[in-house]
């Protein structure tokens, strides 16, 4: 504990400040982007293209526009996550274990995709080190979940100092076993925020399993109507 306090005091800013900057970077007044989600595992590779519309740090609408899952829509609101399937009569509200199901069969869960709370609300963070990665300064943070119910009880994040974007991550179980890794291969600045243009998630518990998210086009401050983030709009 004393060592952790000492380590915090040695750095120019606190771990909480870094988390707050990370959260602020991921929050847009409004943004719309189109990207591909390619999932590779032992059975092959499948690809879907999705359009994502987001407002603030909460409201998010994901629409799968091509691929096997075409027509599927996922809506995140301040309180719920809903999924619409085109061949079903009703919208499904995800809750409990269903939130941890794989999104498009890849290494990202619906909870990963639509996590609502700020990182600093879920985790207590400490700075492990400050260094240079691929020529860029970073903070290496250790995040420990405040509650037992967190999807990843422990995370190690490498946060780029310039962009406040987590460019590398290790997600662990309560026992410290590595479950998933994240590697951001490309980023780009839009307005005041940086966006990961290509991210690769690897589920280390599965053999040859990875999911690559690539953003192809971005529109800042698109026109968003009052219906955009409504449940009724999902099945429209």
């Amino acid at each position, binding site marked *: 504990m004393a060592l952790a306090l000492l380590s915090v005091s040695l750095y120019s800013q606190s771990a909480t400040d870094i988390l707050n900057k990370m959260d602020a970077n991921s929050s847009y007044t409004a943004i719309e982007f189109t990207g591909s989600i390619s*999932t590779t*595992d032992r*059975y092959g590779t*499948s690809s*879907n293209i999705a359009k994502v519309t987001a407002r603030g740090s909460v409201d998010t609408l994901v629409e799968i526009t091509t691929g*096997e*899952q075409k027509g*599927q829509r996922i809506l995140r609101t301040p309180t719920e996550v809903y*999924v619409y*399937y085109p*061949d*079903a*009569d*009703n919208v*499904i*509200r995800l809750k409990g274990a*269903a939130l941890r*199901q*794989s999104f*498009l*069969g*890849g290494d990202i869960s619906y909870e990963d995709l639509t996590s609502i709370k700020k990182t600093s609300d879920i985790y207590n963070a400490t700075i492990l080190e400050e260094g240079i990665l691929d020529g860029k300064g970073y903070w290496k943070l250790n995040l420990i979940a405040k509650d037992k119910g967190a999807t990843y009880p422990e995370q190690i994040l490498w946060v780029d100092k310039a962009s406040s974007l987590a460019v590398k991550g290790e997600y662990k179980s309560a026992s410290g076993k590595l479950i998933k890794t994240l590697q951001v291969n490309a980023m780009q600045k839009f307005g005041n925020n940086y966006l990961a243009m290509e991210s690769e998630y690897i589920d280390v518990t599965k053999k040859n399993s990875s999911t690559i998210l690539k953003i192809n086009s971005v529109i800042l401050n698109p026109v968003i109507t009052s219906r955009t983030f409504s449940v009724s709009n999902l099945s429209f």
Partner: protein
Amino acid sequence: MNKQWATLAFKNIFRNRRRSLLTGLAVATVAAAMMMMLSFIAGMNSDLEVNLKALETSDILIQNKDFERYQVFNPLGYMIDGNEVKNILADEPNIKIYSRTLLRGALYLGDESYSTQIMAFASDDTLIKDRLSVDTGSYPTLKNEAAISRNLAKNRGLTIGDKIMVLSGTVGRGSNAVSYSITGIINIPTGGYNDNTIITTLEGATWLIKSPLVSKVIVTALAGQNINNLSASFNKSFADSEFLAKTWLSTYLGVAVQIQQRFFNFIVLLFFLLGGTVIINTSMMAIMERKKEIGVMRALGTSIMEVRLLFFLESITLSLIGTLVGLSIGTLLSIPFTTGTGFLSGDDSKAILEGFYLANGVRFKITGASALRVLNLSMLIAVIVAVVPTGRVARMKVSDSLRSQN
């Protein structure tokens, strides 16, 4: 000479009617209980096999060769092209081929979801339809129609015309949800299946998992062929494909059923020992009561062999009569349980039975083999009882036998 001993044995039986009645009653009671027990076990074993073959494997099961190994992790990743299998086996005579799909899913009713299994088969799949029964309505015929199992309908308050939404994985490793209209309520003769099964057409399953692949193809041998040879022949034809044929006995379900059957047979063995002990005890008591009588016979010059023969004939006659009476009573008492829902059909029993491939209740199966087994046991015990304790008493000193209180 032997005729004389037979006559004497017969007279002895009627000379002490109380003792003979008690011995015969003991044999009859055990024989009746054994007959009912064997009919019960035969019914369970028969139901196990018939249900397993109708619902899961038929005579030969054809799946992706890696299905059994990886189905826990990704059952949808190891589905097969049913039409390709049919094409490969097109020239095989005297077989009937059925494509089936069985997968896990979630049933959404309002805001609640329930774990369920989706079973899909073709409209001409008489193998399974002969085993199921339609409570109300009919089987689905369109891709957006489904029938549901009896207990699922009862527990969730569903009825014909209702719409249900089902969520499942897809072959492409995504997820999909579709809505089906309920066309029928079906009774499936296994507890587990009856609680949570949704029956769709093969097209309905294709719609849900976004692929025309099926979980398995099962084959019925129509002309009593040797299924081991047939399975080997299929695998020769499948040499360059992903398919693997197995006889129903070599599938993991078949092995599980055989273990269950052996367990049931072990229970039968225990009952045989228990029943045998009762008969032996009763018969030995009857012989021990007659030490003095044996002593008198020996004093009058009857040889040990002749004493043994007399008691052997008495024992055989009593056992035969007792067994035949017992078998008749056991058979009569078993008959009411051979039809309908049979025995153990209550809700409490269902919880025990659903782990097995059994009907909601167990139907007894009366067979000649069961009767023969009981008769054999009874005769064997009669012989043992006549030879061993009688011989021991007959070998006693005559003076000791005569001094005996009995």
